[in-house]
């Protein structure tokens, strides 16, 4: 089936404005009759729930954490892009649009990206009005910095905690609506199923993580703002609780999953220290503004970093990409680091690391300036590694960080299931095959504050409120399924822990479906994943019971979903016989190691339809048209 994103046509500059006018509105007096369920309280979820509540809708919002403020958007460090052009350095909506399309390796829809670039400016205005303390210059105006993949300074930031400050802004707006009674909050509540009635999304089944009670919430629309699935690699920069569960359950109920193979590996993370490690920690990419990446020229170099003279250092990013240098896009920077390490020139334990050196910046700007810019990152680095980044170069290595793939949505952010909307990282829409730094925050807030309020209204205006109530047979059926699966997990009583199995899956995925992929590695993964799935359902050990606070049970459910999903990811990667952005197939590269896209055959988004566990999913294609940016080989040289 050929999918249609239902993008408005005409000159791209007018698409969103025209579309906003064309969409239907809900009468203000009727809004409170519609109930909207918002799952997830990160940037997308909190901003959507707050805005919809403010408009007068009856909103229920859910998060698995104890407070909406803990969603993993909080961990974003570097900044948020906007086409404000405050520095007068040649930025514009069109340039942000162009950079995002190009950065995404021409695998995103033009209209969606244009809209994102257009509303980016509103986001900054909104956040400042909410009291987000962005960095300012001495005149009192907003400060910006440059980020990977861009040659203009368009990234607004709040020290190294931009995600935190933006999320707290959205959380405060959400809190205001909770107080006003328009939004009801359900913390420590995890979505475990989507309820579809007559082909439309009408509810969700959730488990109260404190009491273990499973219940159904019905509404007139469901918004999934549940983030990404990069924990499928087990070790990643995501929070421990981040999972594919919500969108996977929706996928199993019919929502198409698009481009799951587009995963982003972040170039600047702290290298893994040992087997026991539970997560990887990211160091903001902004560090690359002042830090220089290098490895020793000599293989197996044993000297400490500071004793290696200039001539024995290889500043490989500056050498390979003179115009972007250390600010090359993430996928390129990550692969370059892996190449150096594969070439036996890596540093630190196991040789899996490269240096990020601030010596020259400290010499040029002084340690105080560097401290002012990145002080908290240096502190964090020292806490984890016990090394002082001001004195010895930091060691970094790429780590799974973000996913561009997600549930397929049309221009209105609605999936192929009417009434099911997907926002933020959970959808596949704007980043194509690779996301630029500081664009995730932009997307989450754009979706939540400025897009979904219009498009949800458009959908609701065409349907009657309150069609399905909580005693509907579909709800009872869904509750039964969820309770059944919980019982099953508790009854296996095998010999392996959930973490053990998840680690096995993650290792397989990282080695075979990670930073680089090949036909063989992918086939091997597709072969081995079902075995892990079988092992899981035969031999997992989950103690305790379901009617209680049981973190193992939570993890077991998430792991089960990851195992099913991993297969889809590998299949998507195998089907896409090209390299683009975060998807790198060793068979498809230029002589210099750059990704070789195949626009003739793969210029489309791949949306997969679920056909059963262990069964081959069905592929639907949405062709991509580029009318405003010419398809070109992405070059950052």
């Amino acid at each position: 089936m050929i999918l249609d994103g239902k993008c408005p046509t005409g000159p791209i500059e007018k698409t969103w404005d025209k579309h906003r006018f064309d969409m239907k509105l809900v009468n203000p007096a009727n809004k409170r009759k519609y109930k909207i369920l918002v799952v997830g309280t990160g940037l997308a979820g909190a901003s959507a729930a707050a805005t919809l509540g403010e408009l007068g809708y009856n909103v229920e919002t859910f998060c698995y954490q104890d407070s909406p403020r803990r969603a993993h958007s909080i961990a974003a460090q570097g900044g948020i892009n906007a086409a404000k052009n405050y520095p007068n350095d040649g930025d514009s909506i069109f340039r942000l649009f162009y950079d995002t399309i190009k950065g995404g390796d021409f695998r995103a829809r033009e209209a969606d990206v244009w809209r994102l670039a257009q509303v980016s400016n509103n986001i900054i205005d909104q956040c400042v009005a909410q009291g987000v303390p962005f960095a300012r210059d001495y005149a009192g105006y907003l400060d910006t910095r440059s980020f990977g993949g861009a040659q203009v300074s368009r990234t607004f930031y709040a020290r190294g905690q931009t995600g935190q400050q933006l999320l707290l802004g959205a959380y405060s707006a959400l809190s205001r609506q909770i107080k006003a009674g328009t939004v009801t909050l359900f913390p420590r509540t995890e979505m475990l199923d989507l309820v579809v009635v007559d082909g439309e999304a009408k509810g969700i089944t959730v488990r109260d993580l404190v009491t273990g009670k499973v219940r159904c919430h019905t509404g007139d629309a469901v918004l999934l703002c549940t983030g990404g699935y990069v924990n499928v690699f087990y070790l990643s920069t995501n929070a421990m609780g981040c999972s594919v569960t919500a969108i996977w359950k929706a996928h199993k109920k019919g929502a198409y999953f698009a481009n799951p193979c587009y995963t982003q590996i972040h170039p600047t993370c702290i290298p893994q220290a040992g087997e026991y490690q539970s997560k990887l920690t990211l160091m903001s990419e902004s560090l690359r503004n002042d830090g220089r990446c290098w490895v020793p020229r000599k293989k197996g170099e044993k000297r400490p970093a500071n004793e290696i003279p200039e001539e024995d250092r290889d500043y490989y990013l500056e050498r390979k990409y003179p115009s972007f240098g250390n600010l090359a896009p993430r996928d390129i920077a990550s692969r370059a680091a892996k190449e150096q390490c594969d070439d036996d020139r890596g540093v630190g334990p196991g040789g899996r690391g490269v240096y990020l050196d601030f010596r020259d910046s400290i010499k040029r700007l002084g340690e105080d300036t560097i401290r002012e810019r990145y002080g908290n990152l240096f502190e964090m680095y020292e806490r984890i590694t016990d090394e002082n980044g001001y004195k010895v170069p930091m060691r970094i290595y790429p780590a799974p960080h973000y996913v561009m793939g997600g549930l397929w949505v049309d221009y209105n952010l609605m999936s192929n299931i009417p009434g099911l909307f997907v926002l933020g990282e959970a959808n596949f829409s704007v980043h194509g095959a690779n996301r630029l730094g500081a664009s995730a925050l932009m997307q989450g807030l754009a979706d939540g504050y400025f897009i979904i309020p219009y498009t949800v209204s458009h959908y609701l205006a065409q349907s009657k409120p309150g069609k399905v109530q909580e005693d509907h047979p579909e709800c009872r059926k869904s509750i039964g399924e969820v309770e059944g699966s919980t019982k099953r997990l508790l009854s296996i009583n095998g010999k392996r822990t959930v973490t053990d199995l998840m680690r096995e899956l993650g290792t397989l995925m990282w080695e075979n479906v990670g930073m680089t992929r090949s036909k063989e590695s992918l086939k091997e993964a597709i072969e081995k994943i079902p075995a892990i799935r079988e092992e899981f359902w035969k031999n997992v050990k989950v103690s305790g019971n379901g009617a209680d606070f049981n973190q193992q049970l939570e993890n077991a459910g998430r792991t089960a979903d990851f195992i099913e999903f991993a297969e889809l990811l590998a299949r998507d990667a195998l089907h896409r016989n090209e390299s683009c952005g975060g998807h790198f197939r060793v068979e498809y590269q230029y002589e210099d190691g750059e990704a070789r896209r195949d626009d003739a055959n793969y210029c489309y988004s791949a949306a997969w339809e679920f056909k059963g566990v262990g069964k081959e999913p069905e592929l639907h294609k949405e062709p991509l048209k580029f009318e405003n940016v010419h398809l070109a080989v992405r070059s950052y040289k």
Partner: protein
Amino acid sequence: MSAQTAEHGTMTLKLIVWRQAGPGKQGRFETYTAKNITPHHSFLEMLDVVNEELILEGKEPIAFDHDCREGICGMCSQVVNGVPHGGQERTTVCQLHMRKFKDGDTIYIEPWRARAFPILKDLVVDRGALDKLIQEGGYISARTGGVPDANATPISKADADYSMDAAECIGCGACVAACPNGAAMLFTGAKVAQLASLPQGQVEAPVRVADMIQAMQECGFGNCSNHYECQAACPKGIDVKFIARLNREFLKALFKSKAGSHVFAGE
């Protein structure tokens, strides 16, 4: 500073951990042994190791809150040897590493304790009261959309930095856990100060401070005795000057006629 044990040496530690089956249930201390711990394990990874063993023995693992494990989400919450987050300056317990301990150490692990934070299970407490405080006024009532350009109002760098210093709070509740009075003054003060120091937040400042103080009391938090334990335990080093600011904002509110009557009359 550096590892107390040899780089590749491992440690064995005795853990004395608070176990409580559920809210309102009788709790008790249980003793566990953590084996094969390296200096590079984080504190929570050390607990992971203990939990994996408990699970395989068919026992219930120790429940503890955690999520980002990089010190920013504010979910982790353990009192380690009598100090919330374990006593390393400006460090959450998820970022505390075992190189701070040595082989053979005994470690007491307890949940946050305060009237406003009922225990849900083991080391997990309900911090909904902190959300409630924000809901009662920890925001600027800016409608989505109808706001001026971000650069329309210049804000001095000093004010922006001051505001950011306050805004760094991660809402973990260590201040409440550390406070002998179970008070949330640092949490509340930081939010009040963050918003009051920005022009956008000054309009609602008097009403905000009155409402948040009232909420603090309704939630069961105690009062401030200026011990400054909160700042010492805060993983973000939030300064008690923000409590002084809270007090000042309260006094300022009294002298604004309308807002003053709000303070006196309440809801």
